[in-house]
C-alpha cells in the first residue's frame, strides 16, 4: 500500500528517468517489495527449474480444464475472469506481442505496483483495438507485479455478440465515470483511450496526430479518485491497418461509427484482418499526480482542461520523439 503513494511522489520530485529499478535511490526496499508482490500476485506460476516443464504445464492445463468444466472460478462485479485471461487470452496474444509486433516497452516502473492509476493512451489501429490488447499484455507481462489493465471501452463493444462478452471477461468495462471511479477506488489499473473511434478510425495520413480528447471525462475520474495519470504512448499501431478511406454511407447503413477501407480490408475478407507486422514501442510516461489537487476540482472545467491538455501534450511529444528515434516501421 505504501508503495502506491511513494511512486508518484518520486515521479514528482525527481528528474525524468528512463527504465530499470537499479537507478532508483531506494533500491533495496523496492526490490524486496517487488519480489514480495511477484510471489503474492502469481501463486499459480511455477518457480523456474522446479519440476520438469512439460509435466507441470500439462498438470496446470488439466487443473485449468477441471476448473472450467466445473465452473469453479471467480468473476468480479465487472465480469472480469482472471483465470481465463491469464491462462487463455494472454497466452494467445503473447506470440503476436513477442514475435509479430516485437513490442519494446519503456518505463514500465512508472506504473504503480499497487493502488489505482489511470493509464491514458493514444488510440490507433484501423480495424480493431489491438493497441489496447497489447498495452494490457505489456502491463501484465512486463510489470513485476503482473497487474491486469482494466480497459474502458465504448458501448458498441459491449453490444456486439462475442466481442462484448470476451471484453468483459478480459477485464474491460464501459467507458463511463461510475465504472472508472469504481475500479479506481478498488485500486485497479484502468486504461482509457480518450480519442475513441476518432482515433482508431482516423485516416493513415493523420497517423500519430492525436485527435480530440473528449470532454476530459477521464481526468474527472482520476481527480475524483485522487489517483495518478500515467500517459502511455504507443508507436507502431498506426501501421497495422492503414486506413485509406472511410466508407461513410456503408458505416451509416451498418450503424457503425466508421467503416475503414485498408489495402487488405474488406477486399481479402477475413485475411484483411491480419495486421501488418510493424515494430511496436510502448512508452509509459512519468505519472502525473492528481491527489494534491483535491476532489473539489473534479468539476472545475479550467483544471479539467488544463490537465487534459497536459496529458495530451505529453503523449504527443513522446510520440514525436519516438518517431524520430525509430529507424524503420518494420524493424
Amino acid at each position, binding site marked *: 500500500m505504501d508503495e502506491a503513494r511513494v511512486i508518484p511522489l518520486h515521479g514528482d520530485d525527481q528528474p525524468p528517468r528512463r527504465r530499470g529499478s537499479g537507478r532508483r535511490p531506494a533500491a533495496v526496499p523496492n526490490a524486496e517489495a517487488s519480489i514480495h508482490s511477484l510471489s503474492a500476485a502469481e501463486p499459480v506460476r511455477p518457480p523456474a527449474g522446479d*519440476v*520438469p516443464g512439460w*509435466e*507441470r504445464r*500439462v*498438470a496446470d492445463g*488439466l*487443473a485449468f*480444464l*477441471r476448473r*472450467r*468444466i*466445473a*465452473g*469453479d*472460478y*471467480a*468473476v*468480479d*462485479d*465487472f*465480469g472480469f*475472469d482472471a483465470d481465463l485471461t491469464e491462462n487463455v487470452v494472454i497466452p494467445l496474444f503473447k506470440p503476436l506481442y513477442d514475435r509479430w509486433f516485437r513490442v519494446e516497452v519503456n518505463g514500465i516502473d512508472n506504473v504503480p505496483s499497487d493502488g489505482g492509476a489511470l493509464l491514458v493512451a493514444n488510440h490507433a489501429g484501423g480495424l480493431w483495438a489491438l493497441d489496447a490488447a497489447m498495452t494490457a499484455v505489456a502491463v501484465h507481462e512486463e510489470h513485476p507485479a503482473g497487474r491486469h489493465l482494466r480497459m474502458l471501452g465504448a*458501448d*458498441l*463493444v*459491449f*453490444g*456486439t*455478440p*462475442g*466481442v*462484448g*462478452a470476451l471484453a*468483459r*471477461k478480459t477485464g474491460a*468495462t*464501459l467507458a*463511463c465515470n*461510475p*465504472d472508472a471511479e*469504481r475500479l479506481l477506488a478498488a485500486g485497479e489499473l484502468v486504461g482509457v483511450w480518450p480519442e475513441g473511434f476518432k482515433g482508431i478510425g482516423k485516416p493513415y495520413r493523420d497517423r500519430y496526430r492525436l485527435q480530440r480528447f473528449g470532454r476530459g471525462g477521464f481526468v474527472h475520474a482520476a481527480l475524483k479518485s485522487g489517483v495518478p495519470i500515467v500517459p502511455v504512448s504507443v508507436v507502431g499501431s498506426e501501421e497495422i491497418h492503414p486506413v485509406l478511406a472511410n466508407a461513410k454511407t456503408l458505416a451509416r447503413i451498418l450503424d457503425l461509427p466508421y467503416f475503414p477501407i485498408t489495402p487488405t480490408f474488406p477486399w481479402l475478407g477475413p485475411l484483411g484482418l491480419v495486421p501488418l507486422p510493424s515494430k511496436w514501442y510502448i512508452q509509459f510516461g512519468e505519472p502525473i499526480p492528481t491527489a494534491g489537487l483535491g476532489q473539489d476540482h473534479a468539476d472545475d472545467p479550467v483544471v479539467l482542461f488544463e490537465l487534459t491538455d497536459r496529458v495530451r501534450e505529453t503523449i504527443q511529444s513522446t510520440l514525436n520523439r519516438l518517431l524520430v528515434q525509430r529507424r524503420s516501421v518494420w524493424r
Partner: protein
Amino acid sequence: MSSVVLITGVSRHLGARLAEQLADDPAIDRVIGIDATAPRKADLERLGRTEFVRADIRNPLIAKVIAQAQVDTVVHAAALDATTGSLGGVGARVSPKDHDVVGTMQLLAACQKSDTVSRVVVKSTTAVYGSGPGDPAVFTEDMHATGHAPCGYAKGAVEVEGYVRGFMRRRPDITVTILRYASLIGPTIESPLTRYLAMPLVPTSIGFDPRLQLLHEADAVEVLRHAAVAEHPGVFNVAADGVVLLSQAVRRAGRLRLPVPAPAISFVGGLVRNSGVVEFSAEQASFLNYGRVVDTARLREGFGYLPRFSTQQALASYLDALPGLRGLPGLPGLGAGALRAVESLAGRLARVV
C-alpha cells in the same frame, strides 16, 4: 408499543416466510396476512398465529382491514412477486400491470387514508435499472434505466416505484422503505431463474454471457423482516456479494447450454414457454444478454444488513437441493464424465510426477 403488521402476498414464498418469522416475534402483537389465494397446506402450520384475510389487494376492502385492525406497519411483499414471471427479477403471468400496479395503488391509497400506519415497506426489483450495453457495470440506487425504455415487467416495477414516491410526498410522516431485490434463488423458492437453470438444456444467446447477481431466499426474508421491525427510510438494493456468469452457473448445475442467436431467443423461449417451464420476453432476452449487477454499500452501511450468502453460495445452496434430471439421463453425464476424465488424468499425472 403495540405493533400490528399487515403482509401482502402471504400465500407466496416470501410473504409466508416473513409472516412465520414475525409470528414468532413476541414484540409484535398481530400479524395479518392478505392474499387472493389461500396459503398452501404446508405453509398453514408454519404461519402460526398469523391471521389470514382472503382478499385481492386491488379490492378497496383493504382499507377496511387496515382501519379495523389498526395496522401500523404494511409490508407489500406481493409487489412484483418473485415466484411467477420473468427472469430479470420477477413478474407475473397475468398482466403484471394489472396486479402489481393497480394493487399497489389501491394499497397505498388505503395507507394514505389511515391514521395508524407509520411504516410502509415495498418490495421492488433491480429490474428497474434495465440492462443494456450502455449501462454502467454496477448500478447504485441513484441511477435510472438509461437508453432503453423499460418494457413489460420492468415497466410495471418503475410505475410501482413512481406511485410509492408519490405516496411519500403526500404522507411525509410515514417511513417508506423500498427494497430492490436481485434475482431470488434458494433450495425451496421457485422462481423463473430456478426453473430456467433446472432445464436440461439451457437456452442462452450466442456471444453473450450475462453477469448474474443473486439473492438467497433466507437473506430476502431477513431483509424484509428487518425493514418491518425497524425504521429504515430510503431505497436499498438487496443483493448478495459477487457475481456468477450465466455460463458458469450452467456449468455448475451440470447442465448444457443451448446457444441460440440473440434474436431467436424469444422464439425459442416462446416454445419453452408453451411447454410451461419458463417465460421469456424481450426484456428477459436483454437480461440474458447483459445481466445486471447492483451496488450494495447502502444495504450494508445504511440499512445495516450483511447478506449471509454470497452469490456463489446462494447458487450452491440451490444446486445442492436440485433434483437430478429425470428422463434425460445422458445429458448431464457429459459434463460430469468430462470432469471425471480430467480428474483421473490429473490424478495419474500427479502420481507420475
